[in-house]
């Protein structure tokens, strides 16, 4: 038996490959649940429980917001060939920028826009640094952006435990609460900070239009498909890469602003600001196949998994690492399914 390339798979085959691998992932997840000592059926039920009631749906929506913003940016970055694994760190930098504007600058009517500007800017800077290292020194952005995640993590820990620690919070590691003017409005009693959601939808649409309807988008796509051809065409490869990195960093920064200004209303420990949004958004972007607009579909799907993971954590007091397991398995299933659907199985040699 061997595998041979199949450049134009039928949609039925693609569907079957994805179905097969997703089932496999669910099965392996069940085995892990059993090893942990939980009935797999009960665990699956909890994983999908947020779909059942309005509160659960709001939880999904709340998690969709950062996934949408980051995922749209990553879909662009991946398409151009900048493998940004550091959205998590860029999100944290966005949160840092927002917290600085909210807590240490005089409160004005334009405090919220300023928070987005500062947070988005820091996120873009964080991603741009990795792109600069790649363009000028040839350092793999897969590793540098990943390492920058840890740097941002420790920066936030340092800030909330040290200089920015709130005056009114005694044993806890977080800053004071943001003033009223620095808080995003929410939908009713839920945690859905709708301005950020709108921003995410707009970003996905804008990037889609930019990528497929403008000369810049064309250059981006050539650079991503075939860097050598881009060079022969005289396209500025480095600048294209840098620009895509800045966009994805900016959006990840926005996501960080949304999390602290819309949900937590203060800067706190990094593990509480982001539930692995940066990593999960990679899945959203990967699933969207380099089309920012498709992230409008994939982000809610992954939002469900995060909300379900939270339900698992609450109901069974599982460590939150369970989300790492689910997203790791899902990522393996997706990359495997994508690869399998591109191949034909030949039973003879």
């Amino acid at each position, binding site marked *: 038996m061997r*595998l041979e*390339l199949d450049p134009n798979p039928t949609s039925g085959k693609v569907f079957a490959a994805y179905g097969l691998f997703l089932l496999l992932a669910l099965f392996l997840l069940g085995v*892990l649940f059993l*090893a*942990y000592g939980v009935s797999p059926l009960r665990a699956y039920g909890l994983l999908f429980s947020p779909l059942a009631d309005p509160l659960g749906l709001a939880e999904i929506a709340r998690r969709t917001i950062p996934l949408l913003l980051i995922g749209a940016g990553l879909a662009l970055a991946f398409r151009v060939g900048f*493998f940004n*694994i550091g959205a998590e760190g860029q999100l944290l930098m966005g949160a840092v920028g927002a917290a600085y504007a909210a807590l240490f600058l005089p409160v004005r009517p334009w405090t919220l826009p300023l928070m987005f500007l500062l947070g988005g800017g820091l996120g873009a800077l964080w991603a741009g640094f990795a792109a600069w*290292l*790649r363009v000028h*020194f*040839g*350092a*793999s952005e*897969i*590793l*540098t952006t*990943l*390492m*920058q995640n*840890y*740097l941002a993590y*420790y*920066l936030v*820990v*340092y800030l909330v*435990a*040290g200089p920015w620690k709130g005056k009114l919070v005694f044993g806890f590691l977080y800053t004071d609460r943001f003033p009223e003017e620095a808080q995003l409005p929410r939908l009713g009693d839920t945690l859905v900070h709708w301005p950020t959601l709108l921003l995410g939808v707009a970003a996905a649409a804008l990037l889609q239009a930019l990528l497929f309807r403008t000369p810049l988008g064309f250059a981006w796509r050539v650079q991503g498909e075939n860097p050598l051809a881009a060079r022969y065409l005289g396209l500025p490869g480095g600048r294209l890469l840098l620009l895509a990195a800045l966009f994805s960093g900016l959006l990840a920064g926005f996501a960080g602003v949304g999390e602290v200004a819309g949900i937590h209303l203060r800067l706190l420990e990094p593990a509480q600001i982001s539930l692995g949004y940066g*990593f999960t958004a*990679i899945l959203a972007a*990967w699933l969207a196949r380099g089309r920012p607009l498709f992230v409008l579909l994939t982000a809610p799907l992954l939002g469900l998994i995060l909300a379900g993971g939270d339900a698992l954590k609450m109901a069974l007091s*599982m*460590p939150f*690492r*369970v*989300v*790492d*397991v*689910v*997203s*790791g*398995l899902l*990522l*393996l299933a997706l*990359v*495997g399914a*994508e*690869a*399998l659907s*591109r*191949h034909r199985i030949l039973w003879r040699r």
Partner: protein
Amino acid sequence: MEEALFRAVLFGTPILLASLGALLAERSGVVNLGVEGIMALAALVAFGVALGFTPLLGLLAGVGVGVLGGVILGVFTVTLRANQFVAGLAVAALGLGASGLLGKRYEGVPLGHPLPEGGLALLALFLAFSLHHFLYRTRFGLYLRSVGENPKAADLFGVSVDGVRYGALTLGGGLMGMAGAYLSLAYRPSWTDGMTGGLGWVAIALVILAAWEPLRAIFGAYLFGLLFFLQFRLQGSVPIPSEAFAAMPYLLVILVLALSGRTRAPKALGVPFERGR
């Protein structure tokens, strides 16, 4: 001074083992970004087996986890020719997640009979020299290098590209597993969530710093070990926040990558092999 060097070697040993594993796989043309996860899971399984049976069996179990990780990555990257970077990151997340999920009950449990650190450090050194000998002085080493440089030519000469890559991934995974087991059975010897603390990523960066040469990896690993020792020593005695020290290994990796970004990698690194293309 002597103590510093000794601690540097002991701390450098898991980095050395893991980077030897990554190096072996990369020499055959496959990137294994799953190091951190493989080490984390191997550390846990090794610790569990050592508690239930003997530490030596624990070490073997840790190696076994690594081998299994290598095989899984092989199925995706070699047989299915999936994106190596994405598959590797998935393995990293899976290993970290599974160890954090399953290891809770072992947190804070001491290990009665740890393995000797010095002995394992010597073993790691021996393995580095063996790997050098294997790569440059044996027929199979030549096959492996040729698969990493020019798989098409190797295939034409009758070398099984897929077979060599599976071999390199499994052996390399075994070394990563040993690195994880060293942490929980000899260095600590205990288990805590996140005990690998980024060493797997350091190991991947070290492969680049060492320009894919096992003997250079020895120096690199001990250099990192010395830096970690200094970090440990200086902590508390200088007015620098502890977070800055914790962030140091990651900053170091970025620095290393920037300084040695353009060293020559194996030509076919990261490229799936497809016969007839």
